């Protein structure tokens, strides 16, 4: 589904990603961990197409299409979803209206008929239960006045509504208390199918207790320096990152 080859990217002339390789297949959950400044969020931003980053080299294949050649909205319509680390507030635009617009655009891109108002509302009702989002939050302006936890739940609610092929969760666990973390993780787990995939970017192992990854990658210095299974995450929690960095240097 996603094949990243030798990806190099910079921001303001500072090289962040220095030849990153990653392959994600349908049905898989990948966790990307790593110390601060290792390039985790840059990877999410570059994949989503944020303009501040410049891609210097590499290829990204998304479902046999050249991802880097697409505009951010095309990537979204093709099924790439980014759960933002800092979700943006859009005053005056209701969550419902926002999602209605997004779904209409995505469906049009895929050559599907627009959803009827009835079907749309049914979908809203069904999906908001997944993340235990109150009715009031869906009719309020996008993220405006939401608490940190509500914003993150709203991201997962949007993900549920848009049903992406590939979801990238950028530090979705940051700022969540344990209950909110469980709700968010449950939501993500319920959305998993054999056809979609999730990339979880996180600092901490605790999220991976709930969203169990098939692979854990360690990103350091702009490259993936070690790949393992969920046990690797536990080991990292225990021992930190230095031993891997040393291992990578001596290898």
């Amino acid at each position, binding site marked *: 589904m996603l094949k990243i080859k030798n990806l190099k990217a910079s921001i303001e002339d500072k090289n962040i990603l220095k030849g990153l390789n990653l392959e994600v297949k349908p049905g898989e959950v990948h966790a990307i961990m790593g110390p601060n400044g290792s390039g985790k969020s840059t990877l999410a931003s570059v994949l*989503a*197409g*944020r*303009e501040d980053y*410049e*891609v210097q080299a590499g290829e990204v294949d998304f479902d046999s299409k050249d991802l*880097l*050649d*697409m*505009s*951010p*909205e*095309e*990537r*979204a*319509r093709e099924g790439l*979803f*980014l759960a*933002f680390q800092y*979700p*943006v*507030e*859009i*005053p*005056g*635009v209701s969550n419902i*209206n*926002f*999602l209605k*617009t*997004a*779904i209409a*655009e*995505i469906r049009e*891109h895929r050559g599907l008929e627009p959803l009827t108002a009835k079907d749309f509302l049914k979908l809203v009702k069904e999906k908001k239960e997944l993340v235990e989002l109150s009715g009031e939050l869906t009719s309020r*302006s996008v993220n405006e006045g939401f608490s940190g936890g509500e914003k993150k739940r709203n991201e997962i609610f*949007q993900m549920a509504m*848009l049903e992406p092929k590939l979801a990238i969760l950028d530090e979705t666990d940051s700022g969540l208390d344990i209950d909110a973390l469980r709700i968010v993780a449950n939501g993500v787990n319920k959305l998993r199918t054999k056809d979609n995939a999730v990339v979880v970017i996180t600092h901490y192992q605790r999220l991976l207790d709930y969203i169990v990854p098939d692979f854990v990658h360690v990103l350091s210095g702009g490259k993936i320096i070690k790949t393992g299974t969920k046990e690797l995450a536990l080991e990292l929690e225990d021992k930190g990152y230095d031993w891997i960095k040393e291992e990578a240097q001596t290898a």
Partner: protein
Amino acid sequence: MADIYTEEQLAKDLKKSEYKYGFVTDIDSDKAPKGINEDIIRFISAKKKEPVWMLEFRLKAFAAWKEMKEPDWAHVNYPPIDFQDLHYYAAPKPKKKYDSLDEVDPELLDTFKKLGISMEEQKRLVGVAVDVVMDSVSVKTTFKEKLSELGIIFCSMSEAIREHPELIQEHLATVVPVSDNYYAALNSAVFTDGSFCYIPKGVRCPMELSTYFRINEANTGQFERTLVVADEGSYVSYLEGCTAPIRDENQLHAAVVELKAFKNAEIKYSTVQNWYPGDENGKGGIYNFVTKRGICEGDNSKISWTQVETGSAITWKYPSCILKGNHSSGEFYSVAVTNNRQQADTGTKMIHIGRNTKSTIISKGISAGFSENSYRGLVRMGKGAKNGRNFSQCDSLLLGDKCGAHTFPYIEVENSSAKVEHEATTSKIGEDQIFYCNQRGIDTEKAVSLIVNGYAKEVLNKLPMEFAVEAQKLLAISLEGSVG
């Protein structure tokens, strides 16, 4: 890397977005020679078969205007206007009297269709009576019979002067005196038409009254005059909307609108204004110097102004309320969009005179391109305005960094029981907001429209339903052209 949309690109695209409604209708016009003098005023008055008192009113106004100076305090810049180089009268030739739509000039009907305001559709869909002013002369008035059954008068100003002289003489220029300001005086001297509306005691007007103004003749100053009188306990909602064809030379528009609400009466006046704003270098476009004022004459009366301003090269407009009756209230809800080289200096005046009077001001400015957008507002609490209350909120939204937003609030309080609250914010449409929309599959053009409409929602919500839809489209059109 793919074409990613930057704010710079957005600004570039906004600059290029063309005026959607640019076309010219060719209808033989019956024009006065250029210039203004007493003879021209006599010509206009004669052309309109006016009584002597009206001619005298005009000549008095002209005498006052000659003594006045063009105001220069507004935050706008434009070359001096040569008032002797304008035509002050132009009328489509009255080919026939119309009994049905079939008899109306097909070209005219076609124009309305292009504007999306075909009368058939209007009639069928929204049940709005439309009094269409096309280059100064009312072409068609509909629904008149239904309204007259209730005693409501809704007709062109010319007709009102002929048919209801007692009402016109009683109310005209009582809210905006002839010599109120330079443009009001000019309007009083040369106004060619407009609308008159009278709602009798205790009558609730059952439909939205609507007038579409169009400026159609090159170099023709347009001087409409509108008067709405709501007698005791009555209610009326009045809609005014306009679009105009592309023109190379600046066109002056100096309308006067007067509203009078008596005891327990309510007037809701909504405007969607989309005159040609000029090209991206500011060439052409309408100069819109308008005086709009309402008086809450009686106790518990209410006047509400709602405006969505997207057009005109220069806008100078302050729909105001004089709150004379005790417990009367005034409202001003405004969205003003400026793009390219447009300049807008707009706001309101709330003059509190009576006891327990209340006013609300919600102003939303949106600036793009190289435009300048100013809010100018006055809240005055007079000595007698015990417990007067005002709340003002003035927000500015900027697209790009070449445009300007300014706020000039004036507050005068003469009694200690009055309360005035003022809030102001300035924000930019963030690249992160647009990117967030993009990431959900929404392209930049739609994202801007969504964000802008969200920002203006408080005001758009105040518009009558059918007008709100049109206004949303207008906001999108005036900021469109942004496919990344």
